[in-house]
């Protein structure tokens, strides 16, 4: 595509020849890889009359050529994957601590397995998050400040702490003497941090401007926690670790509770999102809708299977597979629902209009509502 249009001075899409002018503007540092396909590469063409961005039949609910009012989340696949990995790690740390504290030596195998799941999860999660960064080499900037208003900031500290603690406890707890005791202690720390680790990602989504996430602000944490527990239990069905029957039962029971919470929370999330019809739409339609439905079916099937009597290894493996797939599908469903939701200006507008009108806030009174001519 690069042709003679690009003279010497315009390679960077600015038409400032650095040989002649000083590139010192605030935006001059912006890196541009290609001008052949400019960023963001837009393909949108409005096919109707420009004034039909405002058609009479929709005059009460105008949009600007149907263009999104919000920016779509820029995150890639690694972020929903991290939701799964981090959540699972957090649940593992919690279960490890509970087993350590209350089960003693008898549950040593479970504790150890959980600690390693948490440790690997913490490390992999960090890697996944760094991968998503626009400037991965600056991942340490996450720890420059602590900002309580930012779930991302809180979460980064939690992840940093949890990843270290889980790794520490996994490495140390097999040692003898002081190191071992320290490992156990760090295991409790890991559990304390693992709790928010499985849940903060839901807060991170709920506390954004994206309508569907925002609508499910209260139920999303329950959903994510449920999925984390379910994901952990399902993972054990797949991992080649030898657990005692008691340990297996503990995991299964823990998992069953998670799956039940998961399924219940899904219903609540749907309910909350559907309070404004357009806001809940991504959970019903499109890729996100399909993933959402699949997640429910997979988790439900996994739950049903795990509740069946019997201890066959294969049964556990299948249930684990279904549960893992369900947990992953759910994270991706929520993630894509957010992307779709951000693209839909009506979701934003209707949600805000309905909130202002049911709260009867001063804003609602302040804003004009009719068409321009009537107000």
């Amino acid at each position, binding site marked *: 595509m690069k042709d003679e249009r690009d003279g010497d001075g315009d390679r960077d899409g600015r*038409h400032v020849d650095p040989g002649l002018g000083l590139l010192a503007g605030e935006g001059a540092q912006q890196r541009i890889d290609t001008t052949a396909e400019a960023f963001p590469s837009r393909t949108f063409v409005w*096919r109707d*009359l420009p004034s039909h961005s405002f058609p009479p039949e929709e005059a009460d609910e105008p949009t600007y050529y149907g263009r999104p009012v919000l920016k779509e989340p820029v995150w890639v696949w690694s972020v929903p994957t991290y939701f799964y990995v981090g959540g699972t790690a957090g649940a593992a740390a919690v279960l490890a601590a509970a087993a350590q504290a209350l089960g003693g030596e008898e549950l040593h195998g479970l504790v150890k397995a959980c600690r390693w799941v948490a440790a690997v999860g913490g490390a992999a999660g960090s890697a996944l998050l760094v991968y998503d960064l626009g400037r991965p080499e600056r991942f340490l900037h996450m720890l420059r400040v602590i900002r309580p208003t930012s779930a991302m900031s809180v979460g980064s500290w939690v992840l940093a702490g949890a990843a270290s603690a889980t790794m520490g406890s996994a490495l140390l707890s097999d040692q003898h003497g002081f190191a071992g005791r320290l490992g156990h202690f760090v295991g409790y720390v890991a559990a304390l941090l693992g709790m928010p680790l499985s849940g903060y990602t839901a807060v991170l989504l709920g506390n954004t401007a994206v309508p569907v996430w925002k609508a499910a602000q209260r139920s999303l944490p329950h959903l994510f926690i449920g999925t984390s527990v379910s994901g952990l239990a399902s993972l054990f069905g797949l991992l080649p670790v030898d657990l005692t029957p008691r340990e297996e039962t503990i995991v299964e029971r823990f998992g069953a509770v998670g799956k039940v919470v998961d399924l219940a929370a899904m219903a609540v999330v749907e309910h909350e999102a559907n309070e404004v019809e357009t806001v809940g739409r991504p959970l019903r339609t499109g890729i996100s809708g399909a993933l959402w439905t699949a997640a429910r079916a997979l988790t439900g099937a996994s739950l049903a299977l795990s509740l069946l009597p019997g201890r066959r290894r294969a049964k556990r493996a299948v249930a684990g597979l279904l549960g893992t797939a369900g947990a992953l599908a759910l994270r991706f469903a929520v993630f894509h629902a957010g992307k779709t939701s951000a693209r839909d200006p009506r979701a934003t507008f209707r949600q805000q209009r309905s909130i202002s009108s049911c709260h009867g806030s001063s804003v609602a009174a302040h804003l004009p509502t009719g068409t321009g001519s009537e107000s």
Partner: protein
Amino acid sequence: MAECHPVGFRWVMEAKSRGAMVIHVDPRFTRTSAVADLHVPIRAGSDIAFLGGIIRYVIEGERYFRDYVVHYTNAPALICEDFRDTEDLDGLFSGWNEKDGQYDPTSWAYEGADLGPAAGNRESFTGQPHSERGTQSGGERFDCTLQHPRCVFQILKRHFSRYTPELVEEVCGVPRHLFLKVAEALCANSGPERTSAFCYAVGWTQHSTGVQYIRTASILQLLLGNIGRPGGGIMALRGHASIQGSTDIPTLYDILPGYLPMPKDKHDTSFERYLELNGTTTGWWSEFPKYAVSLLKAWFGAAATKENGWLFDSLPRLSGDHSHMTTVTAMADGEVKGYFLMGENPTVGSMHGALQRAGMRKLDWLVVRDFAVTESADFWRDAPEIERGEVRPEEIPTEVFFFPCAAHTEKDGSFTNTQRLLQWHHKAVEPPGDCRSELHFTYHLGRRLKELYASSTDPRDQALLALTWDYPVSGEIVEPSAEAVLKEINGFKVADGEPVGQFTDLKDDGSTACGCWIYSGSYKDGANQTARRKPGHEQSWVALEWGWAWPANRRMLYNRASADPEGKPWSERKRYVWWDEEEKKWTGHDVPDFIAERPPSYRPGKDAQGIDTIAGHHPFVMQGDGLGWIFTPSGLADGPLPTHYEPQESVAENSLYGQQCNPGRMEWKRRDNPYHRPWDDPRFPYLVTTYRLTEHHTAGGMSRWLSWLSELQPEMFCEVSPELAREKGLTNGGWATLTTARAEIEARVLVTERIPPLRIRGRTIQQIGLPYHWGSKGRVRGDAVNELIGFVADPNVSIQESKALTANIEAGRRGRDRRVVTSGPLVPGLPGNDRERDLPVVGQKPMGAHGISESRTQQGEEG
């Protein structure tokens, strides 16, 4: 105005915020309309009918400013008994000369006087050699009751009597109530207490009757008393920076700096004869010899003496019409050797791009000075006819020289704006690489030519050798001093080089030199007056210390008219310039445009000569009679009063007269310049108008290469109404192909209510809007609109008709190779033609009347 002059439009918004009413009359609803109080859609090409309707409204309703009209305009003057109006001759004025295809203006004269115009058409290729500015006044007869049937006022009244609101609706498609609203608003906001202003741009000028558009507005403003008064006037908004400057110090072929006429070979055989034919005995132009001598002294310095006629004889003479389109057709006929394009891109910006290229193909050499290699510079390898294989680059003999040029930020110089305000700009950075200013190029070209001919004894080279060419240069790139040029333009005393203070200091004895008399004073006291930038809040509201306005730093011309005949302001509210009885001189907020100590009561005696003939109550000092001309007894080629004629290619028959088009218009009847039917051409049923967008600069040379501007309007598009879109299956954001007899182009489609269909004579007329910025080069590209437009021109100033023509539109893209008429096939003709543009008496306009060579223009070219 908001579209094309957004910076100037700030003052319109300022006025609006202070309560002014903003009316916008335009075929389209533009960014100006978006903030106007009233938007009136009008059929492109029908403005004279619209303005004529308002003139009738003003006269019939007795809404004119009577004292102003009686004293300051020629409304009371009586016209020759021989004069016949278009009402009498079905669209022709008296004096049509069938043989020459032109008017003889003798019958338009004042009764008993011979008077030339202050400006306007001074060509006399048809008439006998006589003074083009008139020789006497005082012989005129007046009827101050305005009742005499032959007085200008009554002629005007009769002339526009049929321009009723009903007719305006029929011709312009303007609903009656909107028209009446405009007319009433203008009347209500004019008079002693209030004034109204008109702003126009090329939407008015680029018609085969363009000059008369402006004349109609002038008549209206004179009737309403809105000239020479604060808040009044007619603002010509220019196409780009310093277009005003390029007529003051002209790039035009027929005038010299300061609106001195170019000498003609047939008549101006000696300097004395030139003065005799171009000077006047009355009014300000009686000073003409001083300006002419000073100009020659500036050019030739010591070599110009009284004895050798100031070297007048070494000036080239005009042999005929050398206007743009005439020259281009002559070029296509192989009559032109070389062509300089300085910052102009005619294959995109001028009419009929294919014919422009056909002309360039016949040149020996072409010099292009521009920021980038434009379509005009690359005409030999990047053109539709080359893509079609009709023309092969290797067979084009033209040698093309491309010179990269400096931008305005890279050189010193001045801009002259529409208010005649000169504003200096300083160089901010050195031009990069080989880029150089026009001044640099021209100076060094002249210097080298002088060196080349230094030893020549050929008489024809002596003018070049005598030329003063001694500007100081500086810097690494040897840039001549722009200030030194300004100093020469300002004028100086030959003896000591002292700058003159103003044009009244100029002499006709060779003791002063001046490059342009109207710019005298711009370098007053040896200081660059145009560089003054005193902020508005530190001086009076007229801001006389910001830049410098010609003439004599006057911000408003003819401002004597802001006071009544006794010299008192018409009203306190509109006080501007007045006679100070105690000081015995004119004073006011501005520099009075009058002889400073001439009292309002002054009346010239019978034997008065020169500027002594200007009476104390005659504000229009440049006119021989000191009056505003409602009726132009001379100076225009197409009639003393504006008349509604249809464009060359129209969608409607002329509702008013049997004469369809302006009889005086310039036509080029050639195989490579075919015209559509005068009206109702079934092949080309839609009305097209062209225009510019805020985001681009004319032919795009300054904007299409710049990404920040290009992204704002990235593609060529056409604007059509939803109704037309439905009719032709056009979709918003889709493609359309537009066709005329000249060429075809494609464009993206923007369907919008902003370009409404109009009802004309019971039919619905669809208009298509075409911004014309794109070409085949640059960062963003598209077909060039002006390919569609043929050569037709106004007879007074040879301006093209590009704002109203007909075309066809179809959905979809054009074929890969696009037809152009110069080398491609003609559009199939129509059987018979029962529609005539002209009355039988107008007959065949003789070919070549405007051309260089009669024989060659008739041949056409390439079969």
